[in-house]
């Protein structure tokens, strides 16, 4: 008896502890409960698997970019070997983040090949026309769909294609425009030779508005060695008609000449500006990308989930209704069938609920909708253990055994079935947790934790509470345990 009393205090202690934990460490809610966006980023590698180092490197670049964007409370974590998950809580538009994150931001400085000036000039003109066509196209998209307008764009595009001696393969007009632009960009880049100066040589990037007009420019600050390289490169082409190109992800964003006055030393001072007709937004995006460095491997956004805040709070409410009504009806069912025993199982279910939630805030487990369904489902499984035990107790009582003996052997004999049943469920949870997606993991985690806790609450808490009741003479009448049944003593 003494040992049981020790258990009783232990259980009361655990209960108080869980309430303390729940008050002081509130539960973390997933985005489907609080609203927000979640982006899944896939690292693309053509050959071989993504290594741990590469994953780390991509992770740190993305992390820097997200921080530089000034997104509040974002959360970035890796998923498996080649995916990252970015969570943006609240009403934040994932569009901005997606634009900044998706780019590799590989910055190169190249110098023009000799005797290519005419070629470059033609290509620059063509680039200008194609850019203009794209602008006209988006304008046409904004105003009503005007077939004549599109026809003109189409004809102009054909002219450019003829000049380039290249025909696009895309199905729709917009795809064609983008394809031609990429082709022109590639041709321009091909006119320049790589140097050893790249985005790696930057220590900072910034932006400012140009003084003469409303355009923005991006400022680059080189490291010591980068500054030297830059000086040497500019020195080599100063005063010639070769241009210096700044190339971002294969697209030349600026081509500039270096004046004769730099012929002796090159451009020193360790900084450069790119002024290529940036809007405030574009300049900020470029700044964020350059500050974070370039991605060692390209990434692709493969999944985006956005949930409004209102929907999130509705989901919480709905889950609460479901959980509470489930608990109440299970409670009624149990008390109806098992009387005092049923009441004991309701008490241990309440304990079960608190222990679960407390563990979520301790580990911590982020609560999501599938997670809640795992919790609600595990209520049924927790009750199952009680039912197994109570059925055994009933049988023992019918056989004419005393109450104390029936309770003891009921718990003892149900033991192996309970453990067996729990193990098969735990196996499933384990596999789900290892192989499942983020979404599925939430379910596996709560169901698994639930199954483990129910081993404790159904075997130990129920027994202790039951023993506590049976110390009182008035709770020891057998008809409190067996409904509507006359049996011989």
């Amino acid at each position, binding site marked *: 008896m003494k040992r049981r009393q020790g258990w009783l205090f232990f259980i009361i202690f655990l209960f108080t502890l869980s309430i303390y934990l729940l008050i002081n460490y509130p539960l973390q809610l997933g985005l489907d409960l609080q*609203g927000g966006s979640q982006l*899944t980023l*896939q690292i693309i590698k053509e050959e071989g698997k993504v290594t741990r180092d590469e994953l780390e490197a991509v992770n740190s670049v993305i992390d820097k970019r997200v921080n530089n964007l000034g997104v509040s409370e974002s959360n970035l974590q890796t998923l498996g070997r080649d995916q990252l998950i970015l969570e943006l809580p609240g*009403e934040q538009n994932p*569009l901005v983040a*997606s634009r900044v994150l998706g780019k590799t931001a590989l910055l190169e400085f190249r110098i023009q090949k000799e005797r290519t000036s005419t070629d470059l000039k033609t290509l620059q003109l063509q680039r200008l026309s194609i850019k203009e066509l794209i602008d006209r196209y988006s304008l046409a998209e904004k105003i*009503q*769909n005007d077939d004549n307008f599109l026809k003109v764009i189409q004809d102009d595009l054909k002219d450019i294609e003829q000049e380039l001696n290249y025909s696009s393969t895309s199905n729709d*007009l917009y795809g064609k425009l983008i394809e031609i632009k990429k082709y022109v960009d590639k041709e321009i880049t091909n006119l320049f030779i790589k140097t050893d100066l790249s985005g790696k040589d930057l220590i900072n990037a910034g932006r400012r508005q140009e003084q003469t007009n409303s355009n923005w420019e991006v400022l680059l600050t080189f490291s010591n060695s980068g500054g030297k390289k830059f000086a040497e490169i500019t020195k080599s082409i100063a005063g010639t008609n070769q241009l210096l190109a700044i190339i971002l992800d294969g697209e030349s964003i600026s081509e500039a000449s270096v004046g004769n006055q730099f012929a002796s030393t090159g451009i020193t001072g360790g900084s450069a500006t790119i002024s290529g007709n940036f809007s405030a937004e574009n300049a900020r995006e470029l700044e964020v990308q350059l500050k974070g460095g370039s991605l060692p491997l390209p990434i*692709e*956004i*493969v*999944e*985006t*989930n*956005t*949930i*409004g*805040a*209102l*929907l999130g709070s*509705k989901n919480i409410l*709905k*889950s609460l209704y*479901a*959980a509470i*009504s*489930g608990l109440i*009806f*299970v409670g009624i*069912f149990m008390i109806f*069938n098992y009387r005092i025993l049923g009441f004991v199982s309701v008490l241990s279910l309440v304990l079960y609920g608190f222990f679960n939630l407390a563990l979520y805030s301790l580990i911590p487990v982020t609560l999501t*909708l*599938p997670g809640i*369904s795992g919790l*609600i*489902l595990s*209520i*049924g*499984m927790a*009750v*199952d253990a009680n*039912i*197994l035990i109570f059925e055994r107790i009933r*049988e023992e009582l019918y056989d004419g055994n005393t109450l104390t003996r029936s309770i003891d052997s009921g718990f003892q004999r149900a033991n192996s*079935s309970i453990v*067996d*049943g*729990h193990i*098969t469920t735990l*196996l*499933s949870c384990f*596999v*789900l947790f290892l*192989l*499942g997606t983020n*979404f*599925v993991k939430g*379910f*596996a985690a709560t169901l698994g934790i639930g199954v483990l806790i129910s081993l404790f609450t159904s075997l130990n808490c129920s027994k202790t509470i039951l023993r506590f009741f049976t110390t009182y003479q008035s709770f020891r009448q057998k008809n409190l345990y067996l409904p509507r049944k006359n049996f011989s003593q």
Partner: protein
Amino acid sequence: MKFNLELIKNKKKIISFSTVLILLSLLGILYSTFNTSYKKPINLGMDFVGGNELRIERICKEECSDFSPDSVLENLRENSKNKNLLNNIKLQSQNNNKLISIRTPYLSIEESNNLISNLDNIIGPLNYESKDSRLIGPKLGKRLLTNCVTSLLVSLLAISLYITIRFDKKYALFALLALFHDLLIVFGIFSWLGIILSVEVNSLFAVSLLTIAGYSVNDTVVIFDRIRENLKSKKEGYNETIQLSVNESFRRTTFTSITTLIPLLSIILFGSYSLFWFSLALSLGIIVGSYSSILLAPSLLLKD
């Protein structure tokens, strides 16, 4: 309250009933594979094939005005250049025209935002706070599918191993037969649901199959445990002992199923819509699982 299921008398009926259920499931799976537009054993949802799903509510003063989905789609088409995309768009309204749900092939975030703002122009104003949008790339979909199939196979293997170690060969074989019977029937029901109501399955369906597997085996194990225990202290014949054991465990098995079904029903009734089909699959699995544990698996153990 003693139960008396006449297992021995009804063995043939039980086995034929299960055979019919299995044949119906197989029929659904075959029909679905060869005679539907998607040509898959089951109607795979967005999680597995990729795409864009959007649900959003309209802001209406009193009742939301009626609209025809076709004319809205026509309007959307006029406002967008990507014709290919909008040929495969589906639009539905629920809750008295308040809730709008749209399915399209995969869109970029930008395209999806454009679609929403176009929609806002046509039947707005929309309540952005109620937005629920999911974009899944086709590559990820394929990966999720392989992931789910591997999870299923691995855990079925783990459960089979556990059962084989834990029981004699005969018991293990019949417990596993009952398990595959349950999974096949739930799968078959969803194949039919896909054919008739175009219900789609997503990754939560795979989760429900896994949970059903754990649950079904658990149920069968409890009854087999009881049979083993009673056979050791055998007073009556082999077949009679099995029937007695089943009747002894009948209350426990049905009660457990009821207490598990109650929370699931409350999710179906009160829970979030995204959990509806998931809870339904689980409920079906639990019903079929109890049937197979109480009636089918022990019947298979009976000697002629």
